[in-house]
């Protein structure tokens, strides 16, 4: 009883992965063979990048402040108060910044992409595109993929900067850590590799969110229920992908940059 269900689940998982790889492959093929629409790209960049700023800034600031406070409370016991900035900075740059910013992007942008494309599917707009000799991947997926790939690292950088600044405000002005040592230790222990690691992760997460969300929208089942399910799955799968991929990317990129 358990084995057939397991087999079915594994088969479904591989079939979904295959479809995702197919869409990603089609997008790359499209990029190689034709110039993407600049206008569609800018529109998507505005939607994904500009309109996500408030949520990403809030996330970065809240994370930076909480991380600073918690780190300080523990480090204060062993008289290491001034190392707080270094922990916050490294943590925000390489792990929390990209992961939390991209989880927010997955929630806001992934849901919108899947819902929009899903609604287009159930109202035959995707079929209409095909009858107008336009590949849905060229018109719908490529601009979203490019925009998410560009916007995610920029938003992550913004979240990290805001988070570090917020942590400095909390550490230096609220908790009484010496500002000069706070900043000096932060600069001393934060390597360029930490920043690059975070930005590489965010770029890959942005691409993954776009591909997963577009795939979920394009493969949406009929009716309002189908759109709802596609939207939920887009957010859930994108978020899980960000979390799981982060672990492997941490291992890989740390070995790559730090030996």
């Amino acid at each position: 009883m358990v084995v057939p269900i397991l087999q079915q689940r594994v088969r479904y998982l591989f079939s979904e992965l295959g479809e995702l790889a197919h869409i990603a492959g089609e997008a790359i093929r499209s990029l190689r063979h034709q110039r993407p629409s600049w206008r569609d790209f800018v529109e998507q960049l505005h939607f994904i990048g500009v309109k996500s700023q408030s949520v990403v800034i809030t996330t970065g600031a809240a994370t930076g402040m909480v991380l600073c406070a918690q780190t300080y409370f523990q480090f204060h016991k062993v008289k290491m108060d001034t190392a707080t900035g270094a922990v916050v900075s490294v943590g925000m740059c390489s792990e929390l910044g990209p992961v939390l910013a991209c989880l927010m992007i997955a929630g806001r942008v992934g849901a919108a992409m899947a819902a929009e494309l899903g609604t287009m599917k159930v109202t035959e707009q995707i079929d209409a595109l095909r009858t107008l000799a336009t590949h849905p991947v060229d018109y719908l997926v490529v601009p979203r993929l490019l925009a998410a790939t560009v916007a995610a690292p920029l938003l992550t950088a913004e979240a990290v900067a805001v988070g570090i600044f917020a942590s400095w405000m909390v550490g230096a002005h609220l908790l009484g850590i010496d500002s000069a040592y706070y900043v000096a230790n932060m600069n001393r222990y934060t390597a360029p590799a930490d920043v690059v690691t975070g930005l590489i992760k965010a770029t890959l997460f942005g691409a993954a969110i776009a591909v997963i969300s577009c795939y979920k929208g394009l493969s949406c089942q009929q009716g309002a229920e189908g759109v709802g399910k596609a939207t939920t799955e887009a957010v859930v799968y994108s978020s899980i992908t960000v979390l799981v991929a982060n672990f492997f990317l941490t291992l890989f990129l740390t070995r790559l940059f730090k030996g």
Partner: protein
Amino acid sequence: MIEVRDLWKGFGPQPVLRGTCLRIEKGEAVVIIGRSGGGKSVLLKHLIALLQPDRGQVLVEGQDLCCLDERQLLQVRRKFGMLFQMAALFDSLTVYENVSFVLQRERRHTEAQMRKLVAEALEMVELRGIEGKKPGELSGGMRKRVGLARAIIYRPEILLYDEPTTGLDPVAGARIDQLIHRVWEQLHVTSIAVTHDMASARRISKRILMLNEGVIYADGPSADILSSTDPVVHNFVNGIVPADSQSFA
């Protein structure tokens, strides 16, 4: 010329098309009639390869669509225009952007040329001055006419209509039929429509095919089919429920 050979298509265990065969010559005005849920729209979508058959062939000017991948199909689809049941206008775009969609993608025309072509296409479907409106601001009949303008602007050779009068009042439906007939006459296209609206079928077709139980049951000039004495055709055309019928399905 379009030819369908032994076309089979099912969704789940139940086959919808069961070895459908048909042939439509260039320039014909054909209507496919049949019961709701009988596979008319499924058959129409196979003609433009929006659906892939389980078995069989769809040949457009001798080219088998079933052997082509999605990108190769884009070239074949350039010969087609399609009006969808609910028009399927892109609701994030204006009427102008919808109608000029193909032209904008091709990047072969200047903005002034596109404006002129859009105005001509909208003129042909008796709509003027609505270029700036969004599809949500239009009535059902207007949406269908915009859909028709979008389908004819690039002068396709074959026009497909999926239930063109569904959801419209009789006057709006008759107006759409007039436009379909006018487009067929003026643009010399092959016109293929699916409908269960017999008044519409009478107005826009020269030949009628009846799809029944997944196969083409009857095929002939419109007048002959509409006056057929075959019980299945007669009952359908005249909306007669057979005495032995057990359900309203």
